[in-house]
């Protein structure tokens, strides 16, 4: 039976990217979590979280723990709800599925994923691949001139929500023995920032979801940490920003206070003082200063926060070292940055500065930031889903029923 469509899902620790291969320009991106407001009954699941009007004191539940889906009932719920809207009248049994799989997945978790997709969601067939290989496909389509891309070779840095991986890829396949992982991702950074600002400014220990938003707006990667730290001292710090917290009425997410706003507030306060009226209620604001660049710093130097782990640059160097020496030149020439954390301004430049001393100087070092780091893997997966090789790679319902887990062996190669 010919498939009517192939659904493409990139299930990450932070967000789910979902769409159909026939409409590769309009994937949905929504949090991979369910949220409950404090003291209320209603639970927002996955896609429904995008429409929330109140984001304060959410109780979040995530199906993913340390980068791997562990709560399959919640994960199924999140995906099934979003699928209903995506497929419309179409039945899942007429569709194939491309699903991303974490690197070096445990076999029990892989089987659980296939069981969910084929038995519970009812897809006709499934193909699972690690996001790095898929991201490189998209990158190769964007930059076909690069020799490494022609060979399907590159080093993909996947700076995701749960952890950060350096993944060498050759011939469109991940080299599993050479993968290196730093156990820090967007989630840890958010929580780290939460801890810092709660101690120094306003207690935000319950506001993980909001803090993530603030982090995305304000954080950047410093190019010279020591100099920036010196500049951040004192009142005149150029990095000082005030974030106006949401008031729960008009402003759902809050915003960074602009200079005009700050000036207007100061003027109003002065006026008030002169006239001697009652004090105006102060807008609750969150002060941030050196946190803006000290938070992403942890990815480059996890030892700063007490983790006995090497930073990202060293992880990349170790990953390349672990690959076959003939590949080193190609890998160094094509380092691809994907994943939400790599959106942080200055990430690419800093990584270049840290990586260059670790690369033998007869190799050229090329670092490319994916044009859309979050969706890069999804777009690559959509390419694969639309390509004629999908039916060959996918495991169908029939194979799964008759051969069980043995049918999945064909993905290993």
């Amino acid at each position, binding site marked *: 039976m010919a498939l009517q469509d192939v659904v493409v899902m990139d299930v990450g620790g932070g967000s789910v990217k979902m769409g159909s291969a026939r409409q590769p320009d309009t994937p949905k991106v929504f949090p991979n979590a369910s949220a409950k407001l404090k003291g209320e009954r209603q639970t927002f699941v996955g896609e429904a979280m995008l429409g929330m009007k109140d984001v304060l004191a*959410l109780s979040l539940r995530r199906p993913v723990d340390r980068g791997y889906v562990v709560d399959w009932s919640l994960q199924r719920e999140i995906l099934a709800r979003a699928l209903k809207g995506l497929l419309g009248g179409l039945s899942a049994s007429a569709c194939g599925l491309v699903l991303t799989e974490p690197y070096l997945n445990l076999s029990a978790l892989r089987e659980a994923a296939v069981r969910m997709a084929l038995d519970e969601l009812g897809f006709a067939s499934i193909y699972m691949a690690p996001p790095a290989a898929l991201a490189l496909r998209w990158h190769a389509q964007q930059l076909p001139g690069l020799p490494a891309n022609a060979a399907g070779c590159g080093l993909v840095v996947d700076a995701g929500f749960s952890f950060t991986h350096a993944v060498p890829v050759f011939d469109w396949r991940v080299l599993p023995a050479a993968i290196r992982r730093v156990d820090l991702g967007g989630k*840890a950074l958010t929580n780290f920032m939460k801890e810092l600002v709660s101690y120094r400014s306003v207690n935000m220990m319950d506001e993980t979801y909001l803090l993530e938003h603030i982090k995305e707006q304000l954080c950047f990667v410093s190019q010279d940490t020591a100099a920036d730290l010196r500049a951040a001292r004192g009142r005149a710090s150029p990095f000082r920003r005030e974030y106006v917290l949401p008031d729960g009425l008009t402003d759902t997410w809050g915003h960074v206070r602009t200079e005009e706003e700050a000036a207007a507030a100061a003027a109003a306060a002065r006026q008030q003082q002169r006239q001697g009226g009652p004090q105006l209620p102060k807008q609750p604001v969150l002060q941030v200063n050196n946190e803006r660049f000290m938070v992403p710093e942890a990815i480059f*130097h996890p030892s700063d926060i007490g983790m006995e782990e090497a930073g990202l640059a060293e992880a990349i160097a170790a990953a390349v070292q672990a690959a076959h020496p003939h590949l080193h030149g190609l890998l160094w020439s094509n380092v691809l940055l994907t994943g939400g954390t790599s959106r942080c301004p200055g990430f690419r430049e800093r990584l270049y500065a840290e990586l260059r001393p670790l690369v033998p100087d007869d190799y050229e070092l090329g670092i490319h930031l994916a044009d859309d780091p979050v969706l890069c893997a999804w777009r690559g997966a959509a390419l694969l889903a639309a390509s004629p090789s999908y039916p060959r790679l996918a495991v169908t319902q029939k194979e799964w029923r008759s051969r069980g887990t043995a049918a999945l062996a064909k993905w290993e190669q």
Partner: protein
Amino acid sequence: MSDKRKLRSRKVSERMAVVDEADRRRVIQARLAALEQDNHKEDDFGAGSDDEEYELPAASGSDAEEGPTSGRKKKKVKVGGGMRKTRGMIEAKAKGPKVFRDFLEEAELEQLPEGAPSYMTAAVGPPRTAAPRKFCSVCGDLSSYTCTRCGSRYCSRRCHAVHTETRCLKFMA
């Protein structure tokens, strides 16, 4: 009375003693573990009961007339929320939520042949090119001093004062 007081001060001063290396490491580990946490509190009984105690007087304090009813309502909601748990949640609760570490142990990766790639082989390991930098635990600036009691870093007398008042691990050991 005076006896009690003595006892208390004795106990406190014991706790004020220098925190040893093992405890310092434990505190750092706890802090790192907290970095992987979500804001999920359903199963946390302590936090749940705390919540209720906190909410009820607040509701009655803000508007006196509606106080008792809104308080009751809140309670009702809580009970209703408790009843409406799905089967999956009850099962999960009975077993306790399974986290990645459990799956990792079940997978028995150490049974794999030597050198086979797995979750364990991908860990990047300790740093080789850079020593850990030290930052003030109060303001985040570069720091040159270490708290003699708990080992946290600070950069100035001002930060040290803040640190001893708020964060020094005196009561955590």
